């Protein structure tokens, strides 16, 4: 239910395995292979980076808070597990997602304002945008999401952990930006929000944010030595696993994450090195958090996987080509008359 993730429609209907997600997406492409062939698109994570940027731009113009932005991003993610991207004008869908999320998150924006801001943001991509189009798309969005509009976000857990572990403002800001980054990955469709929050906090305390690394930037490329940091995170997670002693799956970290063979490789040795190099206080905090994770009964394997997904995402972010991504989207939107 609303306050209970375990009884929520999010857990029941919008949490998938990787295989399920892959099958659903394949099915959408198979509906019309010709369409997919005719209009190639960048990999989904790159599209997500682009959508994320556009949602943030619109959100900023409207002065919308992060919570509503995050909800809009979830709507977009859910929607595109049901509908092939190439059948939609993503600018319309994301403007609608923002409009709907604002109502749901109790910061409603007038439909005309959303439309006018969207029009000035994307004048060429969306000639025919008006309130009626947006209102119609809202029906489409809600219908595809089965009216399941309440989204559980990691931010609440994050706030809770902030007090619990006396996180510094820098650590909180970094954890916050890691959470924001997860909306460009599949993580919100794979794992519960508290797993994502815990992963973000763990990364934040091992990544050692410093003054030169303003947190909250785009794409999370704001860490000086991510590899070492992730390794330290992995080390902490194996500590948590040992402490928890409840996880039946004793798979060693090095054999995890078949999708990212490199990601798991440096974990152990670098992990030890990173831990040795950090001041005692930080080690203490990491260990305390790891011990807490062990006792909390949280799904450590999910955290390990989330960490690896993030590593993989940050690598993939390096290859992101904004211009190409935008052009490919705009090409099919124009060719198919979806901007009318």
């Amino acid at each position, binding site marked *: *239910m*609303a*306050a*209970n993730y375990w*009884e*929520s*429609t999010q857990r029941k209907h919008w949490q998938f395995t990787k295989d399920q997600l892959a099958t659903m997406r394949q099915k959408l492409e198979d*509906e*019309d292979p010709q*369409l997919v062939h005719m209009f190639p698109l960048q990999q989904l994570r790159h599209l997500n980076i682009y959508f994320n940027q556009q949602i943030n731009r619109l959100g900023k113009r409207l002065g919308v*808070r992060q*919570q*509503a932005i995050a909800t809009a991003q979830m709507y977009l993610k859910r929607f595109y597990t049901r*509908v092939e991207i190439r*059948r*939609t*004008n993503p600018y*319309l*869908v994301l403007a609608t997602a923002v*409009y*709907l999320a604002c*109502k*749901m*998150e*109790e*910061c*409603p924006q007038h*439909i005309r304002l959303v439309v006018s801001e969207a029009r000035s943001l994307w004048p060429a991509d969306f000639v025919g945008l008006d*309130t*009626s*189009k*947006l*209102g*119609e*798309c*809202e*029906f*489409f*969005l*809600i*219908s595809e999401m*089965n*009216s*399941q*509009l*309440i989204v559980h976000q990691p931010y*609440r857990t994050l706030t809770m952990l902030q007090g619990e572990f006396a996180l510094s403002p820098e650590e909180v800001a970094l954890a916050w930006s890691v959470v924001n980054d997860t909306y460009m990955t599949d993580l919100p469709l794979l794992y519960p929000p508290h797993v994502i929050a815990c992963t973000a906090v763990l990364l934040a305390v091992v990544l050692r944010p410093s003054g030169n690394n303003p947190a909250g930037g785009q794409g999370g490329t704001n860490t000086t030595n991510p590899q070492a940091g992730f390794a330290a995170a992995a080390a902490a997670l194996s500590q948590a696993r040992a402490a928890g002693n409840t996880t039946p799956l004793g798979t060693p970290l090095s054999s995890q994450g078949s999708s990212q063979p490199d990601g798991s490789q440096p974990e152990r040795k670098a992990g030890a090195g990173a831990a040795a190099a950090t001041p005692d206080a930080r080690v203490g905090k990491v260990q305390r958090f790891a011990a807490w994770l062990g006792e909390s009964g949280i799904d450590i394997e999910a955290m390990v996987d989330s960490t690896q997904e993030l590593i993989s995402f940050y690598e993939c972010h390096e290859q992101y080509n904004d211009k190409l991504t935008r052009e490919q989207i705009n090409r099919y939107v124009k060719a*198919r*008359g*979806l901007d*009318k």
Partner: protein
Amino acid sequence: MDKFPRTVSQLRREAPVNHNNFIYPADRGTGPIGYQSKVRVIDKYKVVGFISSGTYGRVYKALGRQGQTGEFAIKKFKPDKEGEQVTYTGISQSAVREMALCSELSHPNVIKLIEIILEDKCIFMVFEYAEHDLLQIIHHHTQQPRHPIPPSTIKSIMFQLLNGCQYLHTNWVLHRDLKPANIMVTSSGEVKIGDLGLARLFYKPLHALFSGDKVVVTIWYRAPELLLGSKHYTPAIDMWAIGCIFAELLSLRPIFKGEEAKMDNKKTVPFQRNQMQKIVDIMGLPTKERWPFLSSMPDYSQLSTLQPPLSGPSHGHHHHHHYQNQQRQQTGVGGSHLEKWYYNTINQATGSATSAGNGAPSLASLGQEGYKLLSGLLEYDPEKRLTAAQALQHPFFSTGPDRISANCFEGLKMEYPHRRVSQDDNDIRTGSLPGTKRSGLPDDSLVRPNKRVKDG
């Protein structure tokens, strides 16, 4: 009855499609074709009557056409603009809330949502059907001869109502509009909280919970902190309303039946003096001793303009020989007449019941625990007011002759009249939509409010 829907669906299929920009038939929602629902209301449900209308739209009674068991209530939200050219204008925030909350909620004492169909610019929320509601049941008991609701029924209703409310509150949902018309009762005696049109989540609101919607909760059931201008919405507001409903189940009249002061031209919310006075007449003036934050209420200064209660409740009909025995309790703590009101009510009710000669069980069996529960719910200080969880633990439910039943009609020999459904408008597709306003009176209820005024 089948004729018309078929015609409409035929019309729909023959409707001209704009072929100019036709590219892919599978494009939906964003392309030139437009959004099409996968499910059609009229294909799936057969409307058998019209139930009621309100600000949001209309409610119809329906049966399943595709083998669904049971009966259904379909709530149709009207599109914003009426007339020939209906366009999408964005769904109202309250409809969005209701859709989202009802999709999450699942509890035996909260009305169950079956599905939501978005079709033709309208929203159809399909609910399980409930044969009765508390307003209807109360009304039935006011019919001559006036006879009280049996105590076992009252206990069961209160327990189920509190149970549903506790579920809402533990899930951070505030109902905000609890009143007899919104409490449904099925023919098997299950109480179901309905109409979550004003409900919302109350954790971490981005705005003060009051700011979005200026006036909430039918005025008779509005908590004193709201009347005094509080901006903080809490579960205690629902609990006050439940206290008022309890009192109404006992006396068959709204306990605080004030007149609503309308909003002035400047759209400022006026102080509801008349309503507050009605509360003061029975509860006495609130004091800082009993309600420490009283003086920080925005409209605190208005309190001094109210009349302190007279020696007895202003309800004329209560001047009855029965309360002679209760004279000593006349003014309880802090000038409250609630205790007198309570004993007067349960004894008077017994009197008229016996005089009617139907031998109905006496409300007096509710005893002093009934009073304690009532005064715990109608507590001025929202912080001291009983929570739903506390109220469920109240001795009221564990003492007395009656076991609490999950069927509030258990042991009753009579049957309540069924919900009236009219046949005037069975066309769910095009039905004309009167623009009634949610004015604080139970305008969206089955029984017309002016009828109640007579017996009040």
